[in-house]
């Protein structure tokens, strides 16, 4: 029995890591652009499909495909930003809050439908990163999950390094705190928006690419993880990266352990997805700024 719980904990941590990649991306976008990217789950989905086709059609090694897929999603993000989000920061767009919500939501719908049209509604199974299982003590862990954990941790560490220690990171943080002041000291806020959006959706893409061989991919795979990454950034405090990581791991663990305690396994699996959402509802009502967060800043 202990093995079973331990296995659930390991699963929870791995899922939590995937959530963390997504949520950190969403949080980064929020803190710099001051918008919620309602297309985040769909960026995760296209990450999954990019790396699937890179591996199956173009013969990339599945692990390399994750990185190239991530770059592909970044490119899509850059395109989205230049064509559709950049006008938000000029007087051209009125009712900015409304525009940001509807536009990102619309982009999500568009990407999802595009994936349906191009790839069909069926689930696909990407090739294994490394086939087989590894024995760790008395636990048997699927090699794919180990790769997810390893690659996920590497991406996360690189990101934390970039944000915490480099000039780019400093510039991003400066813009997130005060756009005008950052502009005065010579940081171009629009360029930082572009960077934050590119990295942010790239992280979601990496998460989707990584999860492919474990959970399969389909055009609707992004909906629930998208909603959950909203949950996480609210729990962790909108715009707080540390908060997003902690909340992601917590949600991963709560989900994988929580569903075990349901007597009826079908319901357990179904309600597993509702936990986080319920939590979101409660936090929004009682502490809208989240557990570690900054106050929401209006765009107008």
């Amino acid at each position, binding site marked *: 029995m202990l093995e079973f719980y331990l296995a659930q904990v390991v699963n929870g941590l791995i899922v939590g890591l995937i959530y963390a990649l997504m949520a950190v991306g969403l949080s980064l976008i929020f803190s710099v652009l001051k*918008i*919620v990217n*309602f297309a985040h789950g769909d960026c995760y989905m296209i990450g999954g499909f990019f790396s699937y086709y890179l591996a199956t059609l173009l013969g990339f090694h599945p692990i390399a495909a994750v990185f190239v897929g991530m770059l592909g999603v970044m490119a899509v993000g850059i395109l989205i930003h230049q*064509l*559709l989000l950049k*006008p938000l920061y000029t007087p051209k*767009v*009125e*009712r900015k*809050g*409304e*525009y*940001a*919500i*509807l*536009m990102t*939501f*619309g*982009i*999500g*719908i*568009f*990407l*999802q*439908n*595009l994936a*349906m*049209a191009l790839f069909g*509604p069926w689930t696909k199974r990407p090739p294994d990163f490394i086939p087989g299982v590894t024995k760790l003590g008395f636990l048997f862990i699927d090699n794919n999950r180990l790769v997810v954990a390893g690659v996920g941790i590497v991406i996360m560490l690189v990101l934390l390094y970039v944000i915490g220690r480099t000039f780019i990171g400093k510039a991003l943080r400066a813009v997130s705190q005060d756009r005008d002041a950052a502009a005065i000291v010579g940081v171009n806020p629009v360029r930082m928006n572009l960077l934050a959006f590119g990295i942010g959706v790239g992280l979601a893409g990496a998460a989707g690419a990584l999860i492919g061989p474990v959970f399969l991919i389909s055009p*609707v795979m992004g*909906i*629930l993880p998208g*909603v959950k990454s*909203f*949950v996480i950034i*609210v729990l962790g405090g909108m715009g707080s990266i540390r908060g997003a990581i902690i909340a992601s791991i917590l949600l991963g663990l709560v989900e994988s352990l929580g569903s075990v305690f349901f007597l009826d396994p*079908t*319901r357990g699996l*179904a*309600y597993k*997805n*509702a936990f986080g*959402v*319920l939590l*979101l*509802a409660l936090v*929004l*009502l009682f502490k*809208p700024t989240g557990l570690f967060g900054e106050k*929401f800043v*209006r765009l107008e």
Partner: protein
Amino acid sequence: MSEKGIRKVNLAALMVIGALALAVPFILHSYWLHVAIIGLYYALLASSWTLLAGYTGQFSFATMALAGISAYTSALLVIKASFPIWGGFLCGIAAAAFVGLLIGMLVLRLSGPYLALFTIAFSEITRITLNAEYRLTRGDMGLTVPYLFGGIENKIPYYYTILGILAASLTLMWLLLRSKYGLFFRSIREDEQAAAAMGVNIVRYKIMAFVVSSAFAGVAGGFFAHYVGTLTPNSIMELPRMGLIIAMAVIGGIESLAGAVSGALVVQFLQEYLRAIGMWRFVIFGLALILILRFSQNGLIWPLYQRLAGRRVEAKTEPELELPESPEPGVSPGGGGA
């Protein structure tokens, strides 16, 4: 064109559309009649969303979930408690309005993206719960619901029912929106702080907008339950369907009921007409949504009609009263708007 002239054009357009709508069952048959019925159902949902989002500025994503709550309330009361269908239908509307009231009270302090996040979360909880409680709802396998008119072979009664429901609902919404309440809704959309400083009880009218919009979503949901016969949570309230409703309202014109209705009907018609291209039609709708938001934030169809009808897009409905003569001699009555 003068205001009176425009009013004439509008009236004529309304009469032509009304006559066409009444004649539809004589022109379309079976499958296309079904398409028309679903189109009217979507039109009701899109206008209920517009009342809340377009007029009051509350971007809620819970419209479909509220329709679903009404649909399941009605269906379950009829099946498990042997309610007559009209009884279930009314209880369904009441349930949707009540849940709308709760949401309205809960989200008062939330604005912008927080409201959107909360309502998306609420919709997902509702959908997941209805799926999980499959013993009661039969989840994805579908709940068999008694038909409004016994069967579905003859769709004509359903068509006239939803047409009547839509016409009545639109009339009620229109009356509400052109009254002082509509004025308050729009002032809240424009600037909550200024509205409050002008004496508008923003708490009360925000909640009112939620309740009214939810009740109309409930009307649509109740009809749907007793029309399709087999109800699944996903067939009403999955998020992509909410996206379709929003796309309809935005394409039509988010700031007017007529825009929402025309958007819903046009999109629904195209969706069937373009069936040959499969999923690509939804790609086109998604693209249309994005492009319209980007280049014509006020929508496409309704502003286009207004332009054609000779009205400046800017100058919208003049409020209910006729202008009195200018209050003092010597003041130019010349208007900038008309």
